[in-house]
């Protein structure tokens, strides 16, 4: 395998095994943040590139990967998300019936709002919410973020409450 031939030995030996075990989860975390599967796979590639050169203990790999995926995706959301969404909407309005277009725009609008709000949340709240929504247990989220398991629920609840406010505030303006 090409990965094993690195002359300076920089690539960790357990990368293939951990990649096969955790790649789906990393894509899933990034997809929660970004909505787009293609972008989520781009993020997953970046995350595993960093992981492959890291010395993160194997036992902590899963949590490290999930947190790195959430941060990387949130950074992407902050930096380039607006243009990407415009392109999505533009693509969605090509070659469709008027009804489909309207539905697509409404759906995309809600997605845009929730993700704009997600990017504005305090980073810890956003990451905890995304990890939890991606199926990590409270204990896993707590360990990955250095929190107590008891505070995970509070953090997630605050994040959801804030996002709901953003969503309903816009809905009531429509």
């Amino acid at each position, binding site marked *: 395998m090409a990965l094993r031939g690195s002359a300076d030995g920089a690539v960790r030996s357990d*990368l293939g095994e951990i990649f096969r075990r955790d790649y789906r989860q990393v894509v899933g975390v990034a997809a929660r943040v970004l909505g787009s599967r293609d972008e989520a796979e781009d993020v997953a590639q970046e995350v595993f590139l960093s992981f492959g050169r890291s010395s993160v203990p194997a036992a902590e790999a899963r949590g490290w990967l999930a947190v790195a995926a959430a941060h990387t995706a949130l950074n*992407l959301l902050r930096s380039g998300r607006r243009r990407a969404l415009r392109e999505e909407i533009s693509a969605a309005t090509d070659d469709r019936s008027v009804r489909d277009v309207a539905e697509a725009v409404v759906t995309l609008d809600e997605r845009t709002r929730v993700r704009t709000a997600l990017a504005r949340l*305090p980073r810890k709240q956003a990451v905890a919410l995304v990890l939890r929504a991606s199926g990590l247990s409270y204990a896993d989220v707590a360990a990955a*973020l250095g929190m107590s398991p008891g505070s995970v629920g509070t953090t997630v609840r605050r994040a959801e409450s804030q996002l709901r406010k953003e969503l309903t505030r816009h809905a009531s303006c429509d």
Partner: protein
Amino acid sequence: MRHATEGVLRRLLDEPAGVPDVDRRHVAGCPVCLDGLAAARADAALVDAAMAPESGPDVDLDAAWQRLSTAGLATATAKRSPTVRAGRSRPRLHRPVVAAVAVAVVLAGAGTAAAADWLPIFRTDKVAPVGLTTDDLVALPDLSAYGDLAVTADPRVHEVPDAAAAAAASGLDVPQVAALPRGIAGRPAYQVGSKASATFTFSAAAAARAAAKAGAALPPPPPGLDGAQVRLDAGPGVAAVWSQRAGVPALVVARAVAPTAFSTGVPFETVRDYLLSLPGLPDKVAEQLRTFTADGSTLPLPVPADQVTTSPTRVHGAPATLVETRDRTLAAVVWVQDGVVTVVAGSLDAGEVLSIARDLS
């Protein structure tokens, strides 16, 4: 008994077994908690639906592994496959938060930083971190509300061809890295920032208006403070930046003349202590800042506490601050020696940045 907290109610939805029996029993018989549980359930469902990713086929693990192998980790030895990712621009990833913060402090110093807040007005002999959450950063008062802020010299940053040119342009000893860590190669780009200066003139009338706007009364200013000036100087500075793919900095080594504040009329400590008492400053930050008051010789680094951890260390005999992101993707070490502040930051682990810092010549 008291009602279940929001966190307990939220966990009940996901992991009822993780909630103590006593809480579960209380919630089952408590109308207030049941209402709270219903609200939590509704919010969770709404947010979950809004955040649901687009549906699609399962990931193709083999294709993904192939992409990682050919387009990514094999770059050290193998040729990059021209077919992979052709025609698509790389997303901007791994924003070097710590590096950006550190370099902003070093290069901009009291220029842009002082325009936004007043933290860097301390004369700098050593560096200590201030724990700030994102909310606190937003809540920091803009100093311009409390008087006039005149920027007399903007920091101008420009690239120069090599270390010798950087030394000539900045007048500083450009730090030389003894050995690059694994994964970082090539020559750095050198940037030089010119000296920045700004003068802040405190105005009791402006401060009173700002306080009134915030719904608070202005603490009475000490005698002589109205009209007192603080001059802020920073720089020049120099940075060597090693980039990885997509132009993202992988390693930054930066050095600058540390920011200094000069006051007129009243002692600097008086200005500082009064600024600390102004309305709008979060109590926690004010409390932390008060601990720095011994000789007013600390550069507080405004680092977001929810993203990074900081710890004290030593570099070249000087006290230093080590900053790591909680996801351990970035680390930085900052220290001040003889009035010059130096930063080593990068997408590296703490051991690597410390090793680079200690081997700098």
